[in-house]
């Protein structure tokens, strides 16, 4: 089996639209949450989100093509182009048939659906745009990135709610490991700060209503947490076989070591008791990596800031790591980025990779009064310079989908 490494990163996020801005803001513990500006929230209980600011698709895509892409696809194309540039990968110098795309979205082109549904109701079926379907379908980020960069290898898209991004990175890892491609452009993208999505998640009681203190609203593991804050953006990684990366002299950021995925088989939205699905998922990733629990120093938690998730994920970590759980640094960067749904696993794989590369772990902000049920070391308030040999990144999705990837320092042997 091939060894697989990460060689390029690209991000569009509430904390910045390039890797260095994103990482610097995260290390400084900045919040990307604020009042929703993308639609009128007068009638909404929830009035806050973590929006992407100052994104201009024309920096990455020509005007005509931009009009035929939903925002979630525009984010993916921008992040993919930056990731390829970061990897120093020139598509004209590699075998395009050995380069693939695996970019998922939890929901897809909801903005397009909302808009065209209004057209259908107000003006009738003959006025629905011929671009409606190709703009809305959730696989289009993967499809359009392949078209834009000319990647002709394996191409597909995971759709597993909030686990989408991690499934995408993990599935791409397996494609490379078994030798079906040399390079995979993988990750997640989402753009659902829209009336339907905010109303829907709000109806579930899943969103924080701390409208008067937006920057304090996402507070994973804190006693006073009251829901997640919706975010948007894309996190895309260039992954390649070690052999391919070495041959072209690529800069290696981290190694992808293992991947686990399980189902709770329990409930639509609630985690299984004791977080047993997530526990097995982490155990699988560690086993797949051929490593032991004690080899890990950091977990980028799913940590959504909902009552259930943070409690059950904590139990899952304790179940999988036993006494070593208390020696781990565990942080939820959703405290700063909000929850990017299908893109979360993409940007959090990037965070885990950068934590290893920089030997620096980002904090969980707003953790002021720890929940007694959440008693691990969540790196509260401030980033921590520490030894990070290996890290896990967890994503747990509605439907009971669990996905975990294991990353480690790249060492030659």
């Amino acid at each position, binding site marked *: 089996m091939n060894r697989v490494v990460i060689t390029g990163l690209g991000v569009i996020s509430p904390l910045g639209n390039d890797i260095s801005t994103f990482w610097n803001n995260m290390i400084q513990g900045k919040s990307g949450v604020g009042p929703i500006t993308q639609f009128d929230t007068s009638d909404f209980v929830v009035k806050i989100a973590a929006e992407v600011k100052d994104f201009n698709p024309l920096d990455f895509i*020509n*005007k*005509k093509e931009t009009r*035929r892409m939903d925002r979630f696809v525009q984010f993916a194309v921008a992040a993919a182009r930056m990731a390829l540039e970061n990897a120093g990968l020139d598509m004209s110098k590699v075998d395009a048939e050995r380069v693939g795309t695996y970019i998922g979205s939890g929901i897809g082109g909801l903005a397009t659906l909302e808009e065209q549904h209004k057209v259908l109701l107000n003006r009738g079926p003959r*006025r629905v*745009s*011929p*671009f409606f379907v*190709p703009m809305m379908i959730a696989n289009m980020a993967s499809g359009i990135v392949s078209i834009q960069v000319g990647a002709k290898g394996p191409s597909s898209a995971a759709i597993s709610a909030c686990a989408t991004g991690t499934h995408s990175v993990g599935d791409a890892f397996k494609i490379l490991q078994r030798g079906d491609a040399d390079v995979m452009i993988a990750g997640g993208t989402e753009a659902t700060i829209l009336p339907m999505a905010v109303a829907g998640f709000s109806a579930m009681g899943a969103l924080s209503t701390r409208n008067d203190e937006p920057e304090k609203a996402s507070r994973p593991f804190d006693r006073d947490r009251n829901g997640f804050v919706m975010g948007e953006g894309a996190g895309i990684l260039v992954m390649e076989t070690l052999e391919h990366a070495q041959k072209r002299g690529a800069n290696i950021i981290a190694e992808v070591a293992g991947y686990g995925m399980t189902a709770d088989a329990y409930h639509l939205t609630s985690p299984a008791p004791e977080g047993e699905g997530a526990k097995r998922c982490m155990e699988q990733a560690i086993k797949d990596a051929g490593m032991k629990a004690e080899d890990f120093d950091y977990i980028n938690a799913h940590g959504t800031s909902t009552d259930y998730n943070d409690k059950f994920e904590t139990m899952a970590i304790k179940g999988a790591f036993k006494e070593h759980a208390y020696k781990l640094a565990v942080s939820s960067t959703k405290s700063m980025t909000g929850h990017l749904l299908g893109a979360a696993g993409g940007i959090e794989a990037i965070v885990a990779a950068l934590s290893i590369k920089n030997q620096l772990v980002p904090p969980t902000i707003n953790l002021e009064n720890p929940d007694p049920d959440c008693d691990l070391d969540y790196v509260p308030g401030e980033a921590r310079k520490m030894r990070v040999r290996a890290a896990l990144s967890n994503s747990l999705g509605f439907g009971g989908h669990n996905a975990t990837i294991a990353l480690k320092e790249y060492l030659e042997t």
Partner: protein
Amino acid sequence: MAAETLERVKKIIVESLNVDPSEVTMEANIKEDLGADSLDVVDLIMELEDEFDMEISDEEAEKITTVGDVVGYIEKNK
């Protein structure tokens, strides 16, 4: 009159297909010269229907290949 119609059609085509106004001549073939694909053509027909407040049937739309065809159709049917 045809010149005014051409100007209105040109404006829509320039915006929709992101082409230079100088390319949108009466002789220009919408697909071959202006780079429209089949979805672009459907979208363009819908925008023209809105602009000129008319319906262009699928059969009629299939006969349209040049900018001149568009202008001619609109002139005849408005």
